[in-house]
């Protein structure tokens, strides 16, 4: 455009501008007429707000974009600053998103079988769901684990379990994502040590560990240590990975759980990115060059029901991250500006009533994730409000992505909703709301003081209550729950049940492990770890030594806890 402008004579440029103004005036007049004409038109008995409570206008036009920044500043090209249109230059034209179903149940043996099944069916990455004891840093034979072993995910209590989990799965070829936070550094070391046993060195490892403790305090609540030592462990991982595992993502900064706990779209967006900035600041405080670790920071967002709001949220997230990384944190490597994300459809939107409807909800949400430009995606299974998913429902969920990828044509062109008056306006609105929330967080003293005061937790609980009230008053329709019920709500579908015998088997295995390992090495490596926790040296090499000596998860946790203490939540409702 600029070249054309330079070539045409001034007179004709003036002519062009005049025409443009005339056009805008004409549109303004037309719009006024249209508004007058429809002012008294009947509207449906609904609030016309998004899931997050945002007012939605009946119509968006070029007039809504008049004050917006120019195209290159606001959107630009994919793979280029500010990355609104996508983190990579050619997006799905080069490579589809990674279809990554979150899975784990019972023992490492059963979950290993499920992984082989998923890989045979065309899944392209793995994602580990751990059981609650593992998520909290307890061994399967710890008294607090009673009744919870292998129930909600897979039980991993030592390197031995991790070796079984990836038996026959080459870790230099398959990228693995692990959802673990409180004890993330320990499970990460089990993973690195399991790869070593396969002859795979850490610099070949691709994949991600969630390792986002801030959102645990705010929303999901699987913590171990208090904020300060927990943040130190995370920066230790940034530091260690930048040198020894340069292809690995040592964190996945997650909005998913914040949203599932009740947050609105803009709260999810703002809290997640602000947590991300906190990690960046902690890395810089350690003395790390921002460009040495920022390119490996990855994200994870929830994709809820409101289609356009979710697409806009991902676009806004990329732009906000890029601007802050470049302008506030001085990152010079474009890879540090680029926000890469995993997405998952919203578990909280699934209903126990008429559960087959969930297939449709998931399909729409998956499409929003892809139109928003996600790098990988988990689609929920229809039976997840009832129990862990069966093999059949997992297959339907995976096929949903494959239909989207190969039949709908959606991935053929990059960021196809760009330029939509509505989607661009929403993207700007979400960005502005996030900036407002950043200021509020600053006013309360930052992320950690906000957590300690329960500010985030209260904001999220408040939004959750509002949504519950909207649902119960019938203000928000949930198909098959508060409307369109026809007596077919209670559908008997097969669900997966975990045999209580799993817990016993796992306990027996732990007893054998404790018997067979070199107990002197266990004691020596654990003592060295406690010492490292005290001295401030990087924890990763010490925990790796513990892992290799077959120290258990809880033993390693405890060796650090002696120095770090444990987290006590502020209780309120």
């Amino acid at each position, binding site marked *: 455009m600029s070249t054309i402008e330079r070539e045409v004579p001034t007179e004709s440029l003036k002519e062009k501008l005049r025409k443009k103004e005339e056009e805008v005036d004409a549109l303004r007049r037309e719009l006024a007429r249209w508004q007058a004409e429809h002012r008294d038109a009947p509207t449906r008995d609904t609030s016309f707000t998004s899931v997050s409570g945002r007012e939605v206008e009946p119509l968006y036009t070029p007039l809504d974009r008049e004050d917006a920044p120019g195209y290159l500043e606001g959107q630009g090209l994919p793979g280029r600053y500010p990355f609104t249109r996508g983190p990579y230059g050619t997006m799905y034209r080069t490579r589809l998103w990674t279809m990554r179903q979150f899975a784990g149940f019972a023992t490492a043996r059963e979950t290993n079988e499920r992984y082989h099944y998923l890989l045979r069916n065309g899944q392209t990455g793995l994602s580990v769901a751990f059981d609650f004891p593992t998520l909290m840093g307890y061994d399967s034979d710890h008294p607090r684990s009673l*009744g919870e072993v292998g129930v909600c995910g897979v039980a991993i209590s030592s390197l031995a379990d991790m070796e079984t989990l990836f038996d026959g799965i080459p870790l230099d070829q398959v990228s693995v994502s692990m959802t673990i936070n409180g004890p993330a550094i320990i499970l990460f070391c089990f993973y690195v040590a399991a790869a070593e046993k396969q002859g795979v060195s850490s610099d070949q490892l691709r994949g991600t560990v969630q390792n986002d403790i801030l959102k645990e305090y705010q929303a999901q609540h699987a913590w171990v240590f208090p904020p300060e030592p927990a943040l130190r462990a995370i920066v230790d991982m940034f530091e260690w990975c930048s040198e020894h595992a340069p292809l690995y993502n040592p964190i996945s900064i997650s909005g998913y759980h914040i949203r599932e706990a009740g947050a609105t779209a803009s709260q999810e967006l703002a809290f997640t990115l602000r947590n991300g900035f906190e990690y960046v600041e902690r890395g810089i405080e350690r003395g790390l060059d921002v460009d040495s670790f920022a390119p490996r920071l990855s994200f994870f967002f929830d994709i809820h029901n409101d289609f356009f709001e979710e697409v806009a949220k991902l676009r806004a997230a990329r732009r906000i991250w890029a601007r802050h990384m470049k302008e506030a944190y001085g990152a010079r490597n474009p890879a540090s500006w680029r926000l890469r994300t995993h997405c998952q459809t919203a578990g909280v939107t699934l209903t126990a009533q008429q559960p087959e409807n969930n297939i449709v909800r998931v399909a729409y949400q998956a499409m929003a994730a892809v139109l928003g430009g996600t790098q990988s995606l988990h689609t929920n299974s229809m039976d997840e409000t009832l129990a862990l998913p069966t093999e059949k429902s997992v297959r339907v969920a995976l096929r949903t992505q494959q239909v989207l990828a190969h039949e709908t044509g959606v991935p053929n062109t990059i960021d196809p909703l760009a330029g939509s008056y509505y989607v661009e306006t929403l993207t700007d609105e979400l960005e502005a709301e996030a900036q407002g929330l950043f200021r509020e967080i600053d006013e309360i003293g930052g992320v950690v003081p906000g957590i300690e005061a329960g500010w985030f937790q209260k904001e999220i609980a408040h939004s959750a209550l509002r949504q*519950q009230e909207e649902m119960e008053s019938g203000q928000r329709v949930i198909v098959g729950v508060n409307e369109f019920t026809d007596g077919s709500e209670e559908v008997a579908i097969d669900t997966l049940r975990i045999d209580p015998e799993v817990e016993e088997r796992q306990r027996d295995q732990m007893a054998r492990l404790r018997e067979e390992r070199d107990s002197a090495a266990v004691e020596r490596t654990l003592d060295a770890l406690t010492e490292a926790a005290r001295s401030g040296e990087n924890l990763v090499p010490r925990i790796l030594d513990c892992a290799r000596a077959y120290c258990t998860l809880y033993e390693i946790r405890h060796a650090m806890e002696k120095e770090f203490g444990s987290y006590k939540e502020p*209780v309120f409702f």
Partner: protein
Amino acid sequence: MSETDRKIRVLVAKPGLDGHDRGAKVIASVFRDAGFEVIYTGLHQTPEMIVSAAVQEDVDVVAMSVLSGAHMTLFPRVRELLDAEGADHVLLTGGGIIPEDDMKELEKKGVGRLFGPGTPTTEAVRYIREWFEENRQPEGV
């Protein structure tokens, strides 16, 4: 305060290792708005901790939220301990991801009604009120 206008005392509890407290917090707020006196335990409570809080706070009802699949261990354990502590008059109810068949089995073990996903909160309020009307002990007797 006379028996007729005594507030119903409810302990909202999150047993086990599961940290998903959206439901527990929503129901605690709803109970409070319904005029109940509500105590919330916070997260990661053992059955022993819950029962000790229930006895100490002299509650009428313990309402547990379990989304972790560990309900078949946790509900019977809390019931047993309540009974052992002489709190057999306390109603144990709750909600979460609990299959129909398990609800029936737990009912046989002395657990009250359990509420699955999508249940209007008003239903839980009504259930507790009705139970209280039928079962409350006159005070001071």
